[in-house]
């Protein structure tokens, strides 16, 4: 998946002189701690691709001014955990510029945020923060789970006049985790774009299972897509998986349609379960699909503790995985 972002940015920077990229360690010497900006400085020069000091507030907030002068900055914070020092700029300045200037000053920027737990990253390099970020209105938020989606959404984000946060799951960058090979997709062509607010059907239950009332849908995003895919193998033909792909806006229409089709829904997230963005989606489904539900909408997320512990056993105990999803699906289908 990491190459998808790179290729998208390369194509965009080649075509648009107003595009530039800055953040910590994205410059030529390293090209990003995940190599997510590798070769960009070599290709576009040290003025267009440069390192910033450790100042997340500046990284986020400077986009307001850069964009006002007509530029299109890609910026990056190194880990989602470190978006917090920039959260004030995101809330106070970036998200509200357009609405409160009554449409005069959209902030056009793409904020790349590597996120998620990936093999004992520990409490300050693994946090999921989408609930806090989706609670900020006025920004768009993508959370792709495959290379093609990342490329298509990066394109879309770039051309979008509004500020966009792209959560990029570190565990999917290289598909080294067993079961995540699906994140490596064929490379889409240069003009491939994915609009915001359109979910993706990952796998679809068979019509017969749907008709007989023995199917369920998993609504998820990010790493959840892979946990669900693996878990679904235990219930051949019975499971649909819907990947939200973007969290703001999220694809209400597709989610509700699937919920009504199956009557059994599992909302799955890597984040702590409650309160959470995912639990909000659960609430929305339960309200809108009340008469179509054959079972309570289930929610599966991480155990609600203050931080993701470093130790592997503790981390695994906390986070969802395919087995836990399988268990949830089993009880959902048996309801």
């Amino acid at each position, binding site marked *: 998946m990491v*190459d998808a972002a790179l290729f998208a940015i390369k194509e965009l920077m080649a075509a648009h*002189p107003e595009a530039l990229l800055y953040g910590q360690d994205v410059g030529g010497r390293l090209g990003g701690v995940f190599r997510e900006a590798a070769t960009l400085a070599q290709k576009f020069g040290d003025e267009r691709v440069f390192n910033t000091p450790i100042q997340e507030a500046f990284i986020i907030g400077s986009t307001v*001014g850069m964009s006002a*002068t007509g530029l299109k900055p890609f910026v990056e914070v190194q880990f989602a955990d470190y978006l917090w020092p920039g959260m004030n700029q995101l809330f106070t300045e970036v998200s509200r510029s357009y609405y409160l*200037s*009554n449409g005069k000053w959209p902030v056009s920027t793409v904020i790349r945020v590597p996120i998620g737990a990936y093999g004992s990253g520990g409490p300050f390099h693994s946090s999921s923060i989408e609930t806090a970020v989706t609670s900020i209105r006025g920004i768009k938020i993508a959370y792709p789970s495959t290379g093609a989606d990342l490329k298509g959404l990066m394109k879309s984000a770039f051309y979008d006049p509004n500020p966009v946060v792209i959560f990029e799951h570190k565990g999917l960058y290289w598909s080294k985790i067993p079961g995540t090979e699906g994140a*490596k*997709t064929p490379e889409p062509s240069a003009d491939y774009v994915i609009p915001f607010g359109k979910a993706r059907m990952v796998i679809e239950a068979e019509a017969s299972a749907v008709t007989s009332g023995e199917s369920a849908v998993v609504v998820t995003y990010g790493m959840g897509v892979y946990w669900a895919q693996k878990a679904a193998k235990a219930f051949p033909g019975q499971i649909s998986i819907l990947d939200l792909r973007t969290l703001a806006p999220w694809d209400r229409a597709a989610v509700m349609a699937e919920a009504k089709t199956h009557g059994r829904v599992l909302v799955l997230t890597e984040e702590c379960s409650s309160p959470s963005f995912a639990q909000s989606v659960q609430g929305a489904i339960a309200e809108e699909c009340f008469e179509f539900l054959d079972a309570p909408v289930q929610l599966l997320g991480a155990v609600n503790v203050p931080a993701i512990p470093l130790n592997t056993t503790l981390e695994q105990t906390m986070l969802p995985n395919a087995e836990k999803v399988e268990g949830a699906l089993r009880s959902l289908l048996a309801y």
Partner: protein
Amino acid sequence: MSKKTTIPFEKAFKLMATAKSMAELYEREKDTTSKYVHATSRGHESAQLALALHLEPKDYVAPYYRDDSLLLGIGMTPKDLMLQLLAKVDDPFSGGRTYYSHPSLNDADKPKIPHQSSATGMQAIPTAGVAMGIQYREQQGLASKEELGGIAVCSIGDSAMTEGEISEALHMAALKQFPLLMFVQDNGWDISANRAEVHHSNAVEYAKGFTGIEAVDIDGTDFESAYTELGKIIKTMRKERRPFLVRMDVPLLNHHTSGVRKEWYRDDLEEAAKRDPYPILKAQCLKAGVSEKELDQWETEAGQFVQAQYESALSMPDPQPADLLTMISHPPPLLKSAANVRPKVLNLR
């Protein structure tokens, strides 16, 4: 006006009289005007006008909530400002969505003003971003001829300077040497906390920690010298493309805001009144050859004009409920997506 001078005394005095009349009117009509919280520039007028009269359409400026004189100085009318005071739908800045003197502007003939929040000091980073953008456009050859030499001005109160984010903006300005002017209006107050409670020293001292930012102390009550000093600095910035900080020493003569009133806690009002920039400018005008009569007339005219503008603003329509839902998100361009995913030999990592 007889004597020759390069200082725009007439313009400055008319604007200052206008600003003063506005503050007086807001106080007089406070039952109406205080519905929505607002602050005025009383005491800061000379500093603000001295800056405003040097700005050009290619510049960007981030005024704060006390900058109504600055806004008049760049060409906004009292009515423009009052439409925001009254949260009217035709408020040119925000359509009634945000407070008085929280401007945003993208007019061809005036300095540009990105969105301004109420959070003290939070404009520093966005404005540093503007300066970085100006520099980038020049260095990459993206700037049009008209843009060249533009600067970004961050106007800010003395007490907002202690926010951590300010240091990030100053670090970057010092490091990258982009044309950012930090315009610090130092009135010695932080709502009810005074200088001694919240500052170890002043903004010029603070700037010493940022090697490469030139810092200058300016008497903000003296229009003539402030105008001259700022003129020199801005000229240097247009040419040498580097950051400056100025500390404008000013008194706060009016309330902190309409909601937090001076009589509740100020212990220095008499002293502050002695530093009123208004009589100082008056004296400078007289010295420059303006007659008493002219000054009186300009004052009277300003008062009448402000009153008329207020009445006109009052009569304007309010937003309607449906206005809540406009301008939430800028429509993206319609992009044609290639449906085909071109398979490659190697899948993407």
